[in-house]
């Protein structure tokens, strides 16, 4: 019985990470899409926009990365 519960914990961690990746996935899509729109409208600002885009992606992606860390903690513990 113990073994089964451990297997479920690992699977739950996997599902949790999958759920946690949805939000950042959508968010990064929005950030990158809008950055492309902005660059197409004002190509001369592309450098600044790219920097800001990566900063935005970094902030958004943080959630997915926290999920990744928590997956390891949850499946190890």
């Amino acid at each position, binding site marked *: 019985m113990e073994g089964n519960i451990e297997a479920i914990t690992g699977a739950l961690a996997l599902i949790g990470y999958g759920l946690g990746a949805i939000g950042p996935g959508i968010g990064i899509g929005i950030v990158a899409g809008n950055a492309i729109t902005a660059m197409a409208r004002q190509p001369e600002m592309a450098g600044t926009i790219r920097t800001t885009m*990566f900063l935005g992606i970094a902030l958004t992606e943080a959630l997915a990365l926290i999920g*990744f860390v928590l997956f390891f903690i949850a499946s190890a513990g």
Partner: protein
Amino acid sequence: MILATECDVVNEVICAPASVNELFEFPTIFTIGGLEFSRTELLMLLAAFIVVALLFFGLRNGRLVPTKFELVMESAVGFVRDGIGRDVIGTDSTKFVPYLLSLFLFILVGNLFEITPFINFPITSRMAIPAFLSLVTYWIFMILGFSRNGFRYLIDTAWPKTVPVGLRWLVGLIELVSVFFLRPLTLAVRLFANMVAGHLMLTLLLASGVIFVAAIPEIGLKGAVGFFWFGLGLFMFLLEILVAVLQAYIFTLLSAIYIESSIHFEH
């Protein structure tokens, strides 16, 4: 290394290693004064050596008409100095360009080890290396933040004056956690996770492909799935080149952004 020779080709459709750790942990080769050297440490030294050699031989002459190799190295330096340093940090970027350049090249070489034949192991997929690099960046932008702005750096982060009073505690809390805790964590984990995922996928697909194709005489037509795994593995191989360069760029760019946010701290 795996190459799961005990892979169950009859019942499975893909060969998974018994434990993921097998792919990332190597036995100790020799010990110098308590420091255990395994393949990872040797590759790390090799990466550092390659970076130094590239920079030394690429830039020592400074010819008016550079050779092809010198041109590549000069454009790499120019890319970091102008594309990352000057565009992000601004006027006083020259101080940080050496750090950013060595960071970029070391991570790039470390990442590209993933797809180098006979090495095939990205050293940045061991958490110690990205964690240390991100701690160095953390150390730099913390010291800069406190030395340029004094204790105001901490107070203004936790209690931002430009935000309406009602929301100030919430924004302050998010900023505090984000700047002092999440920045170094995500910087390291981003690189680590990308390289781990890439290495896992490549090993799994290419090894499965080879094993199944080799087992065709044994299991017949089912072994043809190996061609699919191998083809997919080759496609991922190309994708991993992109990922390796992009992750090195993003790590360096974010380091520069964090340094910049400590220098020009006004909010």
